[in-house]
């Protein structure tokens, strides 16, 4: 049963990924990413990680994508986007590179060991105990980092003569 769910999720990721590659409007791209991340959140649940599944929705879809939306709004790109190319110049070399990368990944995947199937759910309580136990210092450091980002963003926009 689970396998059908996984296949469905894989399909969603594939489709939204392809869509991301071909849409022109950044707003469409953000929406596609949102769908993709929601699918990922369900995947996280299946993998036995309810805490990060919830975080994925709250943080990623709820905060980071909203950041994207704000940024797009503030950039005030004109609505008509027909003529400009989607791709950067010099498109072919990197495209070849990516195809090669995909090929190598597929070949490497062929040598994988059998992974045991039993997935135990690891509760949010356990994650909390870990975060504030052995990883306490890292957690505090990341908190400090996030705080520092506020200052950094202010510094970036400090030059004053714009009204964003």
């Amino acid at each position, binding site marked *: 049963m689970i*396998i059908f769910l*996984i*296949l469905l*999720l*894989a399909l969603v*990721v594939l489709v939204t*990924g*392809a869509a*991301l*590659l071909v849409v022109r409007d950044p707003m469409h*791209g*953000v929406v596609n*990413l949102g769908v*993709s*991340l929601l699918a*990922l959140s369900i*995947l*996280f649940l*299946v*993998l*036995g*990680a309810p*805490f*990060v599944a919830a*975080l994925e929705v709250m*943080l*990623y879809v709820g905060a*980071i994508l909203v*950041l*994207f939306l*704000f940024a797009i709004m*503030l*950039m005030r*790109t004109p609505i008509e986007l027909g003529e400009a190319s*989607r791709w*950067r*110049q010099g498109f072919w070399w*990197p*495209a070849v*590179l*990516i195809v090669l*990368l*995909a090929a190598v*990944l597929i070949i490497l995947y062929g040598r*994988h060991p059998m*992974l045991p*199937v039993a*997935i*135990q759910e*690891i509760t949010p309580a356990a*994650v909390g*105990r*870990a975060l504030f136990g052995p*990883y306490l210092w890292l957690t505090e450091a990341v908190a400090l980092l*996030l705080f520092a980002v506020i200052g*950094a*963003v202010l510094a*970036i*926009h400090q030059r004053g003569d714009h009204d*964003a």
Partner: protein
Amino acid sequence: MTLEWALIIAALLFLTGVALVLLRRNLIFLLLGIELLFNSAMVIALVGEARWHSVTGQVLVVFMMALSGAALALTLALLLRVKQELGADTVEALRGLREEANE
């Protein structure tokens, strides 16, 4: 089978992310690609967690989310400045680091 498919999804995400970073012109898509790369790494961390029943996977994911959010916030702010100063929001506008290797 679940974990194998999870890895395949991670690989798909990774390839998509890399393609967005390398091939698209608009900088917003570049950043979307970077988010996909982060998420691919998160999936792999959770596969590791499921495989070895260790809580470290989720801890890693939490940190990755925090860090990617921080990086993204800064990058978007920079993006707005780029739009302001350089007038365009494409990859080709960012030429400042170019060395004078061609004279």
